[in-house]
């Protein structure tokens, strides 16, 4: 479904809009407060941008360095060209560990490749352990936000869901503490029983082979330390060359994402060590379209994303449509530039147009991704490759020819005044029906500006 069609459905849900407005404004305001505390925020952003740009330039070198470091510390590295390969690797590793269940840390990469469904097809049950991901999983829903996947749900909806799906919660209230407690009790059993944990990675350091996961609830710490086997699926763009680079990223990420000075749990592990944590560690390096994105020197900035979701929280489009309308793991402005590139621009996407180009996203991005510029760039690429509707192409061509000649332009202005000419019909804004559904058209004035100018001199 195209974005405009999906958005129309979402816009009709007033409960959804109220939930989204409250949630995005709360996080947005928190972020603004904690960012304002940092004197050198702009310098930090610039440092983050520079690290990412430099890393992308030699991504192959850093990935091979990461592979060596992980092996040196007793881990195993797997390379997956696409989601199917990655899913097959994980399923095989779980079977080899002799398990039919895994506990999962919230992860965008595994959502992108549909790991849970793929594991289910192999007879393996995946338990999401992040509270919001659990809510999404229990309700057979899809995440609608990078950081807060159940942002579209309010607490009375969650109470009803828990009462239906969690044993012993028939008299549960919608008090947030009570809801959390119910989830805790349910999840505790999963943690203690699990023999395999699956995580994503916020960062991985090439020089030390260290994987880093940041989270708020402690479920990630459980999943990465209790099971005997730990499998991490990581997009290849997450590698950082040096441990020092983490110092920059770990300042940028929590303030931009949850609006906290520091997130409650930051887990770092490097391979395995006897008597402490998992006995086996596997790192799955996922391409799934990323090397293709890297080939576009403008578009590759989308790979700099550290998944903070600040751009979602300030986006006036996301605030009204929610994440599902984007039809992807990655919603909001970053999704509008990342999803079409990962899937391929020929996939007939309308996502790069799902923005008014207001620029709020670019201003908050902690690694200074020029999101509006990339949106325009991708619109250009898709249109040049014949991806725009024929009627639009013809109309835009006709208007361009009018603007290319002063004589035709002035004739069109006159025609617009009469109300029958091509300018008013084809118009500046294409099909006028979309406009007039909610807005009056301006009446053409008796005199254009240039007619007044000439009459004056």
């Amino acid at each position, binding site marked *: 479904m195209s974005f405009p069609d999906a958005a129309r459905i979402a816009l009709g849900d007033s409960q959804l809009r109220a939930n989204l407005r409250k949630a995005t404004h709360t996080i947005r305001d928190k972020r603004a407060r904690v960012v304002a505390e940092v004197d050198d925020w702009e310098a930090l952003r610039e440092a983050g941008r520079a690290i990412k740009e430099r890393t992308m330039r030699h991504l192959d070198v850093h990935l091979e360095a990461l592979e060596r470091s992980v092996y040196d510390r007793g881990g195993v590295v797997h390379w997956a060209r696409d989601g199917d390969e990655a899913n097959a690797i994980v399923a095989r590793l779980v079977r080899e560990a002799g398990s039919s269940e895994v506990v999962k840390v919230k992860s965008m990469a595994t959502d992108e490749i549909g790991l849970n469904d793929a594991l289910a097809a192999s007879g393996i049950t995946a338990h999401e352990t992040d509270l919001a991901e659990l809510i999404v999983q229990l309700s057979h829903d899809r995440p609608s936000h990078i950081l807060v996947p159940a942002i579209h749900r309010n607490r009375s909806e969650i109470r009803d869901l828990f009462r239906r799906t969690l044993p012993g919660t028939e008299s549960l209230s919608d008090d947030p503490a009570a809801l959390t407690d119910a989830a805790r009790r349910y999840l505790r059993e999963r943690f203690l029983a699990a023999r395999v944990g699956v995580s994503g990675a916020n960062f991985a350091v090439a020089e030390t082979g260290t994987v880093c996961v940041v989270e708020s609830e402690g479920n990630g710490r459980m999943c990465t330390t209790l099971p005997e086997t730990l499998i991490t699926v990581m997009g290849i763009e997450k590698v950082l060359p040096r441990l020092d680079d983490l110092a920059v990223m770990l300042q940028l990420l929590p303030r931009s994402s949850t609006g906290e000075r520091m997130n409650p749990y930051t887990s770092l592990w490097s391979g395995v060590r006897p008597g402490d944590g998992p006995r086996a560690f596997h790192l799955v390096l996922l391409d799934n379209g990323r090397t293709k994105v890297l080939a576009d020197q403008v578009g590759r900035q989308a790979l700099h994303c550290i998944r903070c979701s600040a751009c979602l929280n300030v986006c006036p*489009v996301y605030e009204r449509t929610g994440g599902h309308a984007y039809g992807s793991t990655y919603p909001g402005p970053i999704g509008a530039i990342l999803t079409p590139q990962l899937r391929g621009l020929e996939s007939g996407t309308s996502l790069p147009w*799902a923005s008014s180009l*207001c620029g*709020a996203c670019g201003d908050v991005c902690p690694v200074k991704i020029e999101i509006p510029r990339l949106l325009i760039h991708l619109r250009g690429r898709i249109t040049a490759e014949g991806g725009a509707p024929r009627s639009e192409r013809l109309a835009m061509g006709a208007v361009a020819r009018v603007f290319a000649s002063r004589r035709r332009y002035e004739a069109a202005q006159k025609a617009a005044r009469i109300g029958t000419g091509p300018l008013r019909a084809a118009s500046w*804004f294409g099909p*006028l029906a979309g406009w007039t559904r909610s807005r009056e058209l301006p009446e053409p004035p008796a005199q254009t500006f240039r007619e007044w100018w000439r009459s004056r001199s």
Partner: protein
Amino acid sequence: MAVEARFAEHTRVGVRDHVLVEGGRRLGLGLGGADQAARSGHDEEAQRRAGRWNDLPHAAMRVALFITCLADTLFPDAGRATVELLERLGHEVVFPEEQTCCGQMHANTGYRQEAIPLVRRFVRAFGEAEAEAIVAPSGSCAAMIHDQYGVLARESGDPGLVRAVSEVAPRVYELSQFLVGELGVEDVGAYFPHRVTYHPTCHSLRLLRVGDAPLRLLRAVRGIDLVELPEADTCCGFGGTFAVKNADTSTAMLADKMRAVLDTGAEICTAGDSSCLMHIGGGLARQRAGVRTLHLAQILASTEDALA
């Protein structure tokens, strides 16, 4: 931040001196050593003497009006007001009649190839105008020149066009940016006895970074009752072709903007872009809300003798 502020200050002083020197030269005023010393920035006494010229109407500039196709065709009053305002402040306004559209609609919708001839047309028309400044009653169209002309020119593969853009683009200003940032004027002598709220348009705010320049101008208007717009810096939902390609989302954004405007109790909603005002005004008219939209230039051009 402090360094950037100082840099901006320095640049502004530089342009003002340029105005001073050029204006003085045209009027045959020998400014001699004073302006030279002022420009070097060391001689405080010379700076003070040179600064006095700022108060005189002699600092006249030759300004080319970049009307924008939208104002030319549908909102000529915004253009007329811009001309009247600049002339009242003592500047010479010229209008290069070869200008049509800057190409923003094409470039932003994805029609890069169609936009390139319009870039060529723009730099030719305004290059020939030989004006010290090119001023538009639009943040969005001015931002188009700064933000995208360089990229489009490079995409065209024509080094001549790249050069022409680099000569013309730095002289392009949005109106409030030009008045406050370049001329250093805040009180333009306007009189407008109405309750007004101001919507800062996205491209003026986040591409041109005009900051509070429009509000400084409005605060200095006599008789005005200026009321703050809640959540002012949220997009109104226009977004060019976004308004029709994503009409439902655009309309939802517009609804929130209109509610904010109505909450202020203002008679008039003003902004620096006719396009956003066409969208907001079109929605208000559909609702018969009784609130008018008016371009910032029209408020600034109003005097006790001639109200907009």
